[in-house]
């Protein structure tokens, strides 16, 4: 019956195996912040606490999703926990949560999928004590990829929700 998907276990192995490649891909093609692929803090950031750079570098501005999924992974929850804490500390910011999908889906469905991803992040941050009135969401569907190669390493970077500070 199911030619359509890799077995789940195999998929996870594949994603792990691709992780280093993903980071390389991101840096090469986008100049995206190297933390982005990992969604967590790396070394000590030199950014001023409370700055947008601090948020992006030391907190992690994005979470990633599995194919056709809107469930938060454990890593995504960790990132969002840090985001929640940071946003509670720096309440002067309102935020826009952008939901995105990879290119491996149909356009309209991916627009709705991106909206649902943004909504999931919004709900999670609200549950972490971030006032919901500070959070706006938007979906870009598959129209705004950050990584443009044609393999799983790029697709996995594009299935994301990005928290943008205002």
């Amino acid at each position, binding site marked *: 019956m199911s030619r359509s998907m890799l077995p789940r276990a195999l998929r996870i192995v594949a994603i792990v195996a691709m992780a280093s490649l993903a980071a390389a891909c991101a840096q090469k093609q986008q100049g995206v912040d190297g933390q982005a692929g990992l969604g967590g803090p790396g070394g000590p950031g030199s950014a001023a606490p409370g700055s947008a750079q601090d948020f992006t570098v030391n907190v992690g501005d994005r979470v990633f999703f599995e194919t056709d999924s809107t469930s938060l992974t454990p890593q995504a929850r960790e990132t969002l926990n840090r985001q929640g804490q940071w946003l509670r500390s720096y309440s002067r910011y309102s935020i*826009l949560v952008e939901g995105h999908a990879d290119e491996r889906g*149909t*356009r*309209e*469905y991916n627009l709705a999928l991106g*909206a649902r991803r943004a909504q999931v992040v919004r709900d999670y941050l609200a549950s972490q004590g971030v006032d919901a009135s500070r959070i706006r969401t938007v979906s870009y569907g598959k*129209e705004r990829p950050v990584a443009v*190669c044609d393999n799983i390493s790029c697709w996995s970077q594009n299935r994301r929700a990005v928290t943008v500070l205002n």
Partner: protein
Amino acid sequence: MKSFLTAALLLASLFVAPRAEAVLELDITQGRVEPMPIAITRFGDASGNPQLGQQVSEVLTNDLRRSGLFRPIDQSAFIEAGLGVDAVPNFGSWRAINAQALVTGRVTPQPDGRLKAEFRLWDVASGQQLVGQQYFAAGDNLRRIGHIIADAVYERLTGEQGYFDTRIAFVEESGPKDNRLRRLAIMDQDGANVRYLTGSQNEIVRSPRYSPTRQEITYVSQPIGETPRVYLLNIETGQREVLGNFPGMSFAPRFSPDGQRVILSLQQGGNANIVEMDLRSRATRRVTDGASIDTSPSYSPDGGQVVFESDRGGTQQLYVMSAGGGQPQRISFGDGRYGQPAWSPRGDLIAFTKLAGGQFMIGVMRPDGSGERIVSTSGSVMESPTWAPNGRLLLFTRETSGSGGGPTLWTVDITGFNEQRVPTPNFAADPAWSPPLE
């Protein structure tokens, strides 16, 4: 511009011989057909401007060749050169080059600036005239004359409605893949006369659909940072307006067959439901309601039913329901995910995009879900099928992969044969085939 759109083409009269019996016919229902050899003469013109007639011949020849059903014979092989529209052909000389059908014609500029176009279609074997017509057209509608004659030839020889005198709306994509400029555009069905209707780097446009009855397009516009919303655009005046005052994202619009309503998806939290809007009263009516993504609705040609995609069963699948409400019935049961259903204007088939085994496919099935047939497959993204007005061809997007890749437009016969690229100046996606032009 007005004349470009309103196209003052008049069918003046059938002239000369009465229509003959159906001696020459092409059965196009059986999949791959041997293309019919057809001779299309260089159309003469009485003005001393040889370009006019030749251009019409070229448009006509290109249309018939691209249909896959005809094999236009190279003009250099013609024995009876310079055959005019008033002459009876020497059929032996056309049989000698294996022509089965022969088209002659003439384009004549009129004192009032219009063009008069005359043509005849001959059955070479029997020596009978099958069609003889003349048209008057505005002076800037030379290419349309070619398309209208192509429609007449196609209709006479296949028994099917022609589709050459039509347009395509699409989203043009240019610039790098991670920072595309997306412009709403329309063009003739053969890729000529591209015209841009939007053009901002700060706006993402998606999903244009032609009104079946007016010079209008509905589509989705999203200024960067803002919520996508469904718009209605008047092609002639360029005026556009948001459809509805919805709190959330509205998307995936499509007109009803009578042009009076637009059906679309409305985002509410994590879910998308289908709503129908009456364009006169602007009253909305909920069609679906639930904790799922319901989108890409498409009416049956009688307006009585709606097909849409929903993940209510766990994955994207196709459902059909009464447009008035009621319980949706799932119709897709194969491996994989199904989306973007488009109901054929004939009513007999529903086209869809399918994702299975890492492949993208364009396929068709009957409205009850039986008879699924894949007409094209790709490892890269392929999507957005839209029907030719005669229900014989599908137009869709196929992408080339990687950073330099992008979408292009393709047509395919519903039998799966004769894939043809539709030429566009840049990458192009989200096609919508217009109804036949007035």
